[in-house]
């Protein structure tokens, strides 16, 4: 097996939820960890599930923050300019104070920096945590958004910065479903995007949207078809007709669903392991050709 001396950022994404991103991310990471160091990053910060499958010790928990304005009663003259400046309606003037809505704030700093009285200094607002879980060669970084927070993007960006500062090895990013801002924030900085789909009309519909997103971000991408053998052949045909590489086909097998439901990895199951192994080899070729 090749040594991974260069950083390779692999994003695992999909349009549709429930296609098997976590199934694939956790098992691929586990496979790589059999012979090399690997970093698995759970960026589905609204509903992170990787830690169910990767059993290890939590070595650290890093609280994560976004900057939000804090109203300074002593300095403010209640001119209300900040309310007009904020494009996200995160500030309201109630006559005797300025109310700050941290959940709506996008941390642009405009209100704080443009306030002529400097009455809105920025302070840290806790949005979630990053836990570091170690299981031999596999390190899992789990991003978890606090339940009362509504915006995942700030936390996702924080996790990416944390990764860049501290790790330089094979990196797998388990991304949230969909094709909107969270998915873009998760996958936009990666070297390759693996799109996991299922052979149904929904899988195909959402795959096309995910392909649009990958192209918008100018990221190279390929497809893995999960639950292969069920549904129809439309996804396969679509990939063939559009020159999209299918890097793996995970068979539709109720025992896979059963094992997954218990929170178990599946590398001891031969037909599953061979798909992961072959996928890894193809990804290695991609990684090497990207570095060349």
């Amino acid at each position, binding site marked *: 097996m090749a040594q991974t001396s260069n950083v390779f950022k692999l994003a695992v994404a999909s349009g549709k939820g429930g296609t098997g991103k976590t199934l694939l991310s956790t098992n691929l990471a586990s496979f790589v960890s059999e012979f090399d160091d690997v970093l698995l990053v759970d960026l589905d910060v609204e509903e992170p599930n990787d830690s169910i499958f990767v059993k290890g010790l939590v070595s650290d928990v890093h609280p994560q923050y976004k900057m939000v304005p804090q109203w300074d009663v002593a300095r403010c003259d209640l001119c209300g300019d900040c*309310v007009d400046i904020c494009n996200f*309606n*995160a500030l*309201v*003037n*109630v*006559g005797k104070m300025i*109310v700050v809505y941290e959940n709506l704030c*996008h941390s642009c700093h405009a209100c704080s920096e443009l306030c002529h009285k400097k009455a809105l200094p920025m302070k840290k607002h806790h949005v979630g945590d990053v836990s570091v879980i170690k299981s031999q060669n596999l390190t899992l970084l789990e991003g978890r958004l606090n339940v009362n927070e509504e915006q995942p993007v700030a936390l996702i960006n924080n996790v990416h910065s944390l990764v860049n500062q501290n790790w330089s090895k094979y990196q797998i990013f388990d991304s949230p479903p969909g094709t909107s801002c969270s998915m873009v924030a998760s996958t936009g900085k990666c070297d390759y995007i693996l799109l996991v789909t299922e052979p149904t009309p929904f899988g195909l519909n959402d795959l096309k949207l995910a392909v649009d997103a990958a192209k918008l971000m100018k990221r190279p991408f390929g497809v893995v078809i999960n639950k292969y053998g069920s549904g129809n052949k439309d996804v396969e045909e679509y990939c063939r007709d559009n020159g999209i590489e299918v890097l793996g086909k995970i068979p539709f097998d109720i025992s896979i669903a059963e094992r997954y439901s218990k929170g178990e990895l599946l590398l001891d199951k031969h037909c599953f392991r061979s798909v992961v192994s072959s996928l890894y080899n193809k990804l290695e070729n991609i990684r090497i050709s990207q570095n060349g």
Partner: protein
Amino acid sequence: MKILFTSTGSEWSSKIDPRFGRAEYLLIYDTEKDELISTDNRSVNGKAHGAGTATAQKVFDLSPDVIITGNGPGENAARVLQHLNPKIFIDAQGLSVKDAYEKYSAGDLSQLPLS
């Protein structure tokens, strides 16, 4: 006394808008002057976030004593309204502004406690 209605139009005959944050119009009835003034709130839909807070700011600036609406303000708007302390009456959806006013006057609308 000033009464504010969340409305889908600018007339007495317009239907009450059940939504607070994204109410299309804010109608203020001044009981002393017997005047109905309408504020077009549809621009609040031009912003991605914080319709509740933007509307709450407008409502605060209009400073009504009573608010008559449908579902009641969401948590973002409620936080602002605490500073105004109006009496809030809900479940007026389906009624015209006129009928809602009549029901309120007869004491037939449920009031929301602002805790």
